[in-house]
């Protein structure tokens, strides 16, 4: 298969390696080093998509990140990528891509009817066309717009590729490896600075790859290759290609996405698909270059109309001709370089120059080569639907207002050059307020905001000599601030062709009687008329005009359209561009894969998973786990075909009847030490702590300053100045921060230290009437009788040779103990408890049974202490000291907290004793009351009481203490249930608390 548009003797692709790929199901081939764009153009394919709004045919416009048209959908290794630019994606064997935004095919697209209905799709059409009748929005307009909107189709499958994050620090980050990037990197690296040089393309060199220049007696390409080779060999330099620095954030933090495997058929083992670099740079040199500006004329979106610099790069880098009858339409000298390149490759171009009588080296060279040039000429409109077939051209008057001599000439591509726009995005993101430079009709960075400098054409320096000199100087200057090595390299001499001034003209007027669409934003289909309409309708601020017309809001962020849009607004408003200002540049500079942003924090890796030392035992014994914060806890231990409900009932019953053991390692544990520890606890907790004897535990409640309960738990006095505090699993980290806050900032005079010991101790709660008998066997040498170790007592003991701590505390409401050993002995302890407990019918129990036990006892937990309740609401007011002050006490006397009908916790039992009440149900007086039905409160936790064998719930309801005995209703609109209930005491089982003291 021959490639009609491939040149034989030019380009940098590897002719020895043919690569086949499919586009819209058809097989093509290209060479290693081709992009999808260059390979398709080599095969004569120019129609690759349809435009966003009007579904007009779309081809290729650029050759890199600025590409507004050629957005394709890629299938690779069973993964789908919906937003890739054909001008950037390199081909690989077996690559499959297809067009987006067209149906049924790119050649015949039904949506193109929008092109004929365009009077219905003016700027802001969402707000107009689809406003009436209002009822149509939900069912008709919105689904229609959703179907029509967006490019490509995201995958709904789990992405199996690996994406990594990396943090890096350097003296100097340089973004872009064009002449200024290379020169500054070289100067800085030679001066001893740690340099990162990032290039978004596969090849280094930037404009040197395509320009006919000489640096230090070598061609530009030779020089760049030499510099890159030397930089790569230096240990203080990191050189990265296929790496886009897309965001400039605070304090000189930049983010770069490195596409490691996107150009390969399959991600290699041990390599990620992409890597996101967070780079903290001491200094940044922005050498991101510039992007050619389009000229605006009729049908300037037809496939075959493209940037002249792109046409040149397709020839010089890829050896591909974008057309064989090219028309070059330019307002400056750059177009001539493209024309000369065509001529050198045996193609005769025609140049239309908007200028009257320019003269320069390049123009003379073009003339000498015999290239036909028409001065004061413009393209009025491109002709051809799916590809340029001809162009209407005309002579333009000196005032650039009138057209004459309109004629049609044949051509197959139109290469436009409207001069250059510096890529100031990164500088602008750093906070640099840019300024308009009249000489180049574009914005350039002003005073540095962060530690950044912009160099080269990104700074409006359009001659190589200026660029190279500036870059060597800056590279030395900023590196020397850091290294102070004073090692300056000599600057090579530069030979380049001199060019002359560009023409400020950029938008061709419409000939009389014609209404060609002249596009500004090619991706979002924003035409000159849309901007005119927005201004007619009263939009003035450029930010409003942008949002109303969607100018520059597509995935290309208006890289080619912004300045022309600003020019138009300022022309219509009779202002100059700097008065109009420009819209804000925001990261990312180019689209970034969501996968790269997320990195490896996916699924189970999104947070750490914490496991207790007994985890393996639980696994082996059929535990079904539940996430408790970052911990995995056994929810229940499944026997046979048991359901959760059956298993938890069995486990809870066994605790009430015999003895159970529960892994409580996850409880937060904090060591509180120091001579003022008692005083500190006395301020932190609501109850009194000064008189707690050594060897005793106490239950405490702590508040936030606003009076809301923050956490609860027991704290034990281990020795004179040492307390062991426990917190709930969920609040452990917050409580530690809270304690540190008060110790460090509020009461630094207190001599107390706190440290987390959660991971140092493994804990097992042994609960049930048989627990003491079991304990006596576990600790035969320790007196664990009711007298020897009373309720809320604490003892250190010997567990078969290992030191253990026994706390007689109970969450289940049964006679219970918590045994702690150092984490490493956790599994030993657990196995011993199970082994010795056999004769007492011990069974392990999970969090579900734990909940059942605490709910029917009326013990509060996270679902009651939910950040909205004060001690009174949870019936904890008995623990609030009236004598001493503590954190949050003053808040408790606020009027809302002391009103007589304040919410309070109660128990709820369904009258039929069988229907479980969904958690979150409302408690109401009259289920048939008019909506909104006044609610008395809500059900916070539900269980099946194993003591009474019927459902039981806790609820927090208004005036709870006076509601006991009332018949009310629990309503769950979510579950569509209304249940008649009786309000009872929250202490459903053993209200006197006899069992824990038995």
């Amino acid at each position: 298969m021959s490639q009609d548009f491939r040149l034989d003797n030019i380009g940098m692709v590897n002719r020895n390696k043919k690569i086949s790929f499919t586009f819209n199901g058809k097989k093509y081939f290209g060479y290693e080093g081709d992009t999808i764009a260059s390979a398709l153009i080599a095969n004569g394919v120019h129609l690759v998509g349809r435009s966003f709004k009007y579904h007009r045919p779309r081809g290729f416009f650029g050759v890199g990140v600025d590409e507004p048209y050629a957005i394709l959908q890629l299938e690779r290794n069973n993964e789908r990528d919906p937003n890739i630019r054909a001008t950037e994606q390199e081909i690989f064997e077996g690559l499959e891509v297809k067009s987006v935004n067209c149906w049924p095919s790119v050649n015949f697209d039904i949506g193109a009817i929008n092109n004929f209905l365009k009077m219905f799709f003016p700027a802001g059409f969402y707000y107009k066309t689809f406003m009436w009748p209002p009822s149509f929005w939900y069912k008709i307009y919105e689904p229609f717009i959703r179907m029509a909107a967006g490019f490509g189709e995201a995958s709904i499958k789990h992405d199996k590729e690996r994406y990594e994050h990396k943090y890096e620090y350097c003296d100097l980050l340089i973004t872009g490896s064009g002449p200024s990037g290379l020169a500054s990197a070289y100067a800085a690296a030679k001066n001893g600075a740690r340099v990162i040089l990032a290039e978004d393309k596969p090849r280094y060199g930037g404009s040197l790859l395509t320009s006919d220049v000489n640096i230090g007696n070598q061609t530009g390409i030779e020089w760049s290759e030499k510099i890159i080779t030397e930089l790569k060999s230096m240990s203080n330099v990191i050189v990265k290609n296929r790496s886009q620095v897309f965001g400039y954030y605070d304090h000189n933090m930049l983010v770069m996405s490195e596409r490691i495997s996107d150009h390969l058929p399959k991600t290699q083992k041990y390599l990620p698909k992409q890597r996101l670099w967070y780079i903290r740079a001491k200094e940044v040199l922005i050498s991101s270059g510039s992007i050619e500006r389009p000229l605006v004329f009729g049908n300037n979106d037809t496939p075959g109309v493209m940037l002249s610099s792109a046409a040149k790069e397709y020839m010089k880098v890829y050896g591909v001709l974008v057309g064989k009858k090219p028309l070059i339409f330019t307002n400056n000298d750059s177009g001539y370089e493209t024309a000369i390149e065509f001529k050198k490759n045996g193609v005769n171009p025609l140049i239309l120059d908007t200028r009257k009588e320019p003269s320069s080296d390049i123009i003379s060279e073009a003339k000498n080569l015999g290239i036909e040039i028409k001065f004061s000429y413009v393209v009025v409109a491109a002709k051809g639907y799916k590809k340029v077939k001809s162009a209407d051209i005309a002579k333009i008057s000196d005032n650039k207002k009138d057209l004459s001599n309109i004629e049609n000439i044949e051509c197959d591509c139109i290469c436009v050059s409207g001069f250059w726009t510096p890529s100031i995005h990164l500088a602008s993101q750093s906070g640099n307020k840019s300024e308009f430079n009249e000489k180049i009709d574009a914005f350039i960075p002003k005073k540095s905001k962060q530690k950044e400098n912009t160099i080269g054409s990104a700074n409006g320096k359009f001659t190589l000599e200026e660029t190279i000199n500036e870059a060597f100087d800056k590279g030395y200057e900023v590196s020397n601030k850091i290294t102070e090595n004073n090692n300056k390299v000599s600057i090579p001499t530069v030979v380049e062709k001199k060019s002359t001034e560009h023409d400020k003209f950029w938008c061709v007027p419409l000939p009389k009687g014609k209404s060609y669409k002249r596009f500004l934003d090619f991706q979002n289909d924003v035409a000159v008329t849309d901007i005119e309409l927005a201004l007619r309708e009263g939009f003035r601020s450029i930010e409003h005009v942008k949002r109303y017309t969607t100018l520059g809001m597509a995935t290309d962020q208006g890289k080619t359209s912004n300045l022309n849009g600003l020019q138009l607004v300022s022309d219509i408003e009779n202002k100059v561009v700097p008065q109009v200002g420009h819209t804000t540049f925001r990261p990312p500079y180019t689209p970034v894969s969501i996968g790269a942003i997320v990195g490896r924090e996916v699924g189970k890796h999104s947070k750490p998973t914490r496991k207790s030392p007994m985890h393996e035992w639980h696994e082996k014994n059929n535990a079904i786990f539940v996430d408790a914060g970052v911990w995995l806890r056994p929810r229940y231990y499944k026997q046979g075909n048991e359901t959760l409900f059956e298993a938890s009932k069995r486990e809870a019953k066994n605790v009430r009847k015999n003895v159970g053991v529960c892994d409580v390692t996850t409880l937060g544990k904090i060591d509180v030490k120091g001579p003022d520890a008692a005083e500190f606890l006395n301020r932190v907790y609501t109850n009194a702590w000064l008189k707690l004897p050594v060897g005793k535990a106490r239950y405490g409640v702590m508040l936030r300053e606003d009076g809301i309960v923050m956490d609860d738990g027991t704290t034990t006095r281990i020795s004179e100045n040492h307390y062991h505090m426990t917190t709930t699993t969920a609040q452990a980290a917050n409580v530690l921060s809270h304690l540190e806050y008060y110790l460090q900032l509020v009461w630094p005079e207190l001599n107390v230290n706190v440290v987390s010991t959660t991971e140092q101790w493994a804990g097992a709660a042994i609960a049930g009437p048989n627990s003491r008998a079991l304990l006596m066997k576990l600790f035969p040498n320790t007196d664990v009788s009711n007298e020897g170790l009373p309720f809320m007592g604490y003892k250190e003991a010997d567990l078969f040779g290992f030191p253990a701590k026994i706390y007689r505390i109970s969450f289940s409401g049964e006679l219970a103990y918590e045994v702690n050993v150092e984490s490493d002995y956790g599994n030993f302890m657990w196995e011993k408890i199970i082994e010795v407990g056999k004769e007492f019918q011990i069974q392990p129990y999970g969090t579900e049974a734990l909940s059942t036990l605490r709910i029917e006892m009326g013990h509060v937990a996270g679902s009651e202490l939910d950040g909205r309740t004060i001690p009174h609401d949870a019936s904890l007011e008995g623990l609030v000291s009236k004598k001493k002050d503590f954190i949050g006490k003053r808040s408790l006397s606020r009027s809302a907290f002391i009103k007589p009908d304040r919410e309070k916790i109660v128990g709820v039992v369904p009258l039929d004793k069988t229907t479980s009440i969904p958690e979150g149900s409302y408690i109401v007086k009259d289920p048939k009351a008019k909506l909104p039905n006044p609610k008395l409160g809500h059900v916070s936790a539900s269980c099946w009481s194993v003591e009474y064998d019927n459902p039981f719930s806790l609820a927090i309801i208004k005036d709870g203490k006076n509601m006991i005995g009332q018949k009310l209703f629990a309503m769950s609109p979510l579950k569509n249930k209304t249940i008649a209930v009786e309000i009872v005491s929250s202490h459903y089982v053993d209200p006197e608390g006899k069992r824990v003291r038995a």
Partner: protein
Amino acid sequence: MLYIFCPHCGLRSQNEFAYGGDATVKRPELNKEISDQEWNNFVYLRKSPRGKHLELWHHISGCRQWIKVERDTSTHEIFKTYKADELTE
């Protein structure tokens, strides 16, 4: 991402810290009789200045010390950082 100088550890990235709010708030002394209004001001009322602001940061994934940071809320410029017990200017 901010780059915060911890007076105990040196320059560290923001993701090692937790934000702790206004550092100029002073908790009323314990056992002191104060009005509802005063207490309300302490618990709820905070200024949200544009510009220089003294705020608390907790070096939660580092030395676990609370520090005071003088930061410009609109530009994120950090002027100075202080230890918890250091007097601020």
